């Protein structure tokens, strides 16, 4: 079946205007420090409003693990610290100021795995990691069973990691070697087909190169984890973007964590698509102000498939999507139409080839979707639900025209499993 698996996946067709090829460096005037999408964490703010912070300085740390810090993406002044009930971080808004102040970190202690972990946590690298099962930032003392480094992204309009990593091969190799010290298990480096990206790294037997196909969801971390090293309740698997691994390499070499990342701005409500190098928490309004078409539009952080409406670029996102805002009809729908469309929640999924390919043909799609919508945790766990997150099934959600229903069911199931096994 190898020849069938090679072409698995789909290429959904979205519209975006032609793009400008040069990459612009933009540090926005405002930025927000936030937690990963979908996670709410109790924090202790380390700054007060109107304080000056250097680039890379900690602005908040976790309440129960003060080692893990959230850092400022640029030097500036703290505008607003807003916490939700329970001292959960909502956002810390910063205003940029002209200053070269940069936080330096002592890299001597990074020789041991424990020291490396503490350096990553205090330098604000920790929020760039994500764990499975259940998603979100890893626990501060967690040891992963395996790590996936994603140098492939097949989401529509995703930036090419090769472009982002051009000229940073040394940093990448250093970061990868450091990551390998954090786990006793394998480190998978997933890349697209083409020339090898790890020229000098053939020495370590634990680092495996994996080549992903060009169709979505082949370059989706969850699908790859499901195939290579399924995450389990006692076997967490981390995934991190290759650009962030290069940033880790730079942190180890120079003591400062690079904040910028390559971001692609696309979508049908733009005059032109463009590439920018910007930082997490960037102000999407400033990024898109000059290129958006004059009509109501929706700013999304993330791809058209798995993005969400946002004001700030989410911590792990590398895409901004701008879509026309759908006109809401002033008249209420006819009662019969409303009765037929609103009453049945969770419409049945008809097994088709499209559904199989929406999961990259790596798992029995129909039994999985049926287990999800029936809330059958046991079957879903057998089929590998612990390796998956919302973004991995976003394509299936789109293909089945469910409008987020499948992702909501997955989140509900993961939360239920987490509560059940935490008890």
């Amino acid at each position: 079946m190898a020849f069938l698996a090679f072409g698995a996946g789909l290429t959904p067709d979205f519209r975006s205007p032609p793009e400008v090829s040069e990459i612009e460096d933009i540090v926005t005037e405002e930025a927000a420090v936030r937690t990963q999408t979908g996670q709410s964490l109790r924090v202790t703010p380390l700054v007060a409003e109107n304080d000056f912070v250097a680039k890379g300085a900690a602005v908040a740390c976790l309440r129960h693990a003060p080692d893990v810090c959230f850092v400022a993406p640029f030097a500036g002044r703290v505008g607003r610290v807003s916490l939700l009930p329970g001292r959960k971080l909502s956002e810390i808004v910063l205003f940029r100021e002209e200053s070269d102040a940069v936080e330096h970190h002592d890299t001597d202690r990074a020789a041991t795995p424990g020291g490396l972990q503490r350096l990553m946590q205090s330098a604000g690298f920790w929020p760039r990691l994500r764990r499975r099962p259940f998603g979100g930032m890893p626990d501060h003392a967690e040891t992963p069973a395996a790590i996936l480094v994603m140098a492939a992204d097949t989401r529509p309009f995703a930036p090419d990691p090769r472009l982002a990593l051009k000229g940073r091969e040394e940093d990448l190799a250093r970061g990868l070697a450091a990551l390998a010290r954090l786990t006793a298990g394998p480190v998978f480096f997933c890349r697209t087909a083409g020339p090898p990206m790890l020229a000098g790294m053939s020495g370590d037997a634990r680092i495996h190169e994996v080549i992903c196909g060009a169709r979505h969801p082949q370059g989706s971390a969850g699908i790859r984890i499901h195939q290579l090293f399924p995450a389990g309740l006692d076997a967490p698997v981390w995934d991190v973007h290759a650009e962030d691994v290069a940033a880790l390499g730079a942190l180890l070499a120079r003591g400062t964590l690079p904040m910028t990342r390559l971001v692609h701005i696309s979508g049908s409500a733009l005059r032109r698509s463009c590439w920018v190098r910007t930082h997490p928490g960037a102000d999407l309004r400033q990024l898109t102000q000059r290129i958006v078409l004059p009509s109501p539009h929706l700013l999304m952080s993330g791809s058209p498939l798995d993005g969400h409406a946002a004001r700030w670029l989410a911590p792990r996102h590398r895409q901004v999507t701008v879509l026309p805002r759908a006109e809401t009809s002033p008249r209420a729908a006819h009662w019969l139409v409303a009765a037929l469309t609103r009453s049945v929640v969770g419409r049945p999924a008809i097994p088709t080839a499209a559904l199989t390919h929406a999961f990259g043909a790596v798992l029995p799609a129909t039994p999985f979707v049926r287990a999800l919508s029936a809330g059958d945790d046991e079957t879903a766990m057998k089929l590998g639900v612990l390796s998956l997150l919302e973004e991995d099934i976003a394509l299936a959600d789109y293909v089945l025209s469910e409008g987020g229903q499948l992702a909501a069911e997955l989140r509900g199931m993961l939360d239920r499993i987490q509560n059940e096994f935490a008890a």
Partner: protein
Amino acid sequence: MIRGLWNRETVAAILLAAYLPIALIWVGHEGKEAFSRLGLSLLVVAIWHLVFMLARAQPPSLYGLATALAVAILAPEEIGVFRMALALSFGVVMGELVFGGWGRNVVNPATVTLSFLGFGFPSFEWPVFDLPVAWAAIPAALIGIATGTMPVSVLMGAGILGAGAVAAGYLSEPVVVASAIVLVLLVADPVTSASTSLGRWLNGVVFAALVVLFANGWAGAAGVQIAVAAAFLSSLSAPLLDEAALSVWVAQRRKRHGRS
């Protein structure tokens, strides 16, 4: 929120398009009588869909048209309005609508209807098809495969075993013709056939094996009767085949990764 295409009604519409070659050739050969049979089954199916829509707010599905078409083509001749309406009511309500509509059913409503007719009124003559109608099953299957709405493995599993049986002289022409039409119209239904890769192959093989068994061991049975009985039994076995295929899949993953 942007949405894709492959919801229930799209799949139903594509399946209807796939059945068009069979429907057109059949109408062309049967003439006026075809229209009256099709009209009657459409009416009964539509009434029940309407009842469930009003009583249970269950959206009707385009697949009702496919059910009506399959029943009109395959039902015994001279069966009469009352018997036809009774069987269709049973098939559509008990086979599809009580489960929550198309997509949640475990057996194809048309298969249930035809089996009901076969068990309830065995003295009526089953139709015999001209060759062109069976040939039309091939483009129908191709449309279904190309659009991904019909399971390839079911068609291939049944096709390969069936071809072997024909070559070995176990199947006569009327049985092959009827089985080809039943395979495309009833067995290759994406919802009620097996849904895993291995399960689908087995599903097709089980159908063809049952056809061969009935063709050689059921004295006096007509081609359509044999094919419908095989379709009914193979669709009842589909969940079991799926369960077996899933167990195999999970066991393989356990072996490879140490956990599922």
